[in-house]
């Protein structure tokens, strides 16, 4: 067996984690906004958020990634050319890291929106009514009253989505990002020990998902302090 590419493969773990954490932050933010929009009393934000959640969740993430990565490049080129930017070539290349992270964040925002919507509904209405009666603005009600109380209800779904998201980061290798998966494939081809390198990659993903499962379970227990069974 040829294990000399092991350092090359392990060097991809950082990028995989960076994509995962970046996408997590973006999708959490998008999820909160979309969940709040779905529960809004205005029709337009509600319709937009419902369309976002339904459309994104009806299409495979790989297709959306290819659509946004290749299609996004063309859209950027068209805009750049219209504005006369981009120098002689008339184009600005989209960075695959940005494309991969933004795409995953955009996709998983739809899943987080569902989780957060359910969690927000679990916070008694009296809480926000009381806050409104105290003279808080709607944004204050959301950030000070609803969000802190929904964390407990959102954590199980949040854990689930994070685990699926980590595994989905493997797809960024398809658009050419040199993450763990991409490097394992290259190493396997170069050394003719593909089985070994894919087992290594699988073990690393398994380690990431197991550790985050344990960590999030501990956080969940912390958030359940003082809750009567």
């Amino acid at each position: 067996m040829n294990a000399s590419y092991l350092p090359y493969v392990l060097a991809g773990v950082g990028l995989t984690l960076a994509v995962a954490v970046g996408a997590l932050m973006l999708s959490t933010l998008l999820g909160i906004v979309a969940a709040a929009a779905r529960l809004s009393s205005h029709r337009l934000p509600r319709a937009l958020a419902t369309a976002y959640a339904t459309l994104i969740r009806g299409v495979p993430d790989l297709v959306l990634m290819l659509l946004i990565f290749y299609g996004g490049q063309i859209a950027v080129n068209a805009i750049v050319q219209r504005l006369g930017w981009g120098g002689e070539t008339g184009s600005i290349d989209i960075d695959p890291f940005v494309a991969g992270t933004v795409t995953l964040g955009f996709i998983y925002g739809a899943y987080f929106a569902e989780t957060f919507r359910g969690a927000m509904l679990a916070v008694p209405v009296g809480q926000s009514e009381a806050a409104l009666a105290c003279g808080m603005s709607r944004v204050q009600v959301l950030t000070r009253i609803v969000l802190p109380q929904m964390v407990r209800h959102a954590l199980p779904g949040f854990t689930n989505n994070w685990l699926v998201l980590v595994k989905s980061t493997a797809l960024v290798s398809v658009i050419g990002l040199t993450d763990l998966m991409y490097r394992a494939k290259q190493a396997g081809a170069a050394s003719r020990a593909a089985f070994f390198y894919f087992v290594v990659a699988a073990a690393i993903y398994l380690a990431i998902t197991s550790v985050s499962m344990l960590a999030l379970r501990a956080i969940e227990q912390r958030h359940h302090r003082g809750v009567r069974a």
Partner: protein
Amino acid sequence: MDFETLLQPDTLKLYASGIGVTLELLAVALLAGVVLSMPLAVARASKSRLLSLPVAAFTFVLRGTPLLVQVYLVYYGVAQLDWVQARWDAVWPWMWFKAPLFCTLVAFGLNTTAYTVELVAGAIRETPHGEVEAAQAFGMTRATLMMRIVLPSALRRALPGYGNEVILMLHATSIASVVPGIVDITGAANGVYATTYLPFEAYIAAALIYLVLTFALVLALRWIERRALAHLRRPGGRTGLAPTAPDDAHPA
């Protein structure tokens, strides 16, 4: 946007054959998953550690790693083992590992098996104690009890969760497009993009096809659920169980 180019007979044929490949992948993987997961789920829900722990390890590994790794592991990994290469010219069943479609189906089938096992095992564990005790009082053997009492009701209760798994598997089949030689819906879009250089149109067409398939499956599953869970229906018309996709959370 230039959808005219997409409406050429050749392009339409490519998408149509892609739909066929996607549905074939989905059907075979799901069938393998259902058949394999039945005995494994019974073992997983068993009180004997000797039976349940190996199955728990299997589902832990398959549910904790990306499907893409599993597909590559079977397609590139297994095919490069000397032990397999020494046999795949003559010895059954190793010759099948030469076929990309078979390798992909092995990975898909095992993946959906792992998720289905946990769904069904959960439903088996939730069987009301009274039903089991009544069957025991009738003198049923454990096998009869499992076949006649536990499984029929557990499988029905697992249906809403399984509906979600079907939809997720439909979307997961798009990963087959990374395997050389398999042209599913996503693969067809890749081909159209490569020849026309129209990424928006090519992938939006694929996305629309997946959306239509998803909604058709959701409706079909809802119909099956309504029939299979008719005995749990409340006077209001809804079944006593939680509604299934598209509103459910995504299982890990």
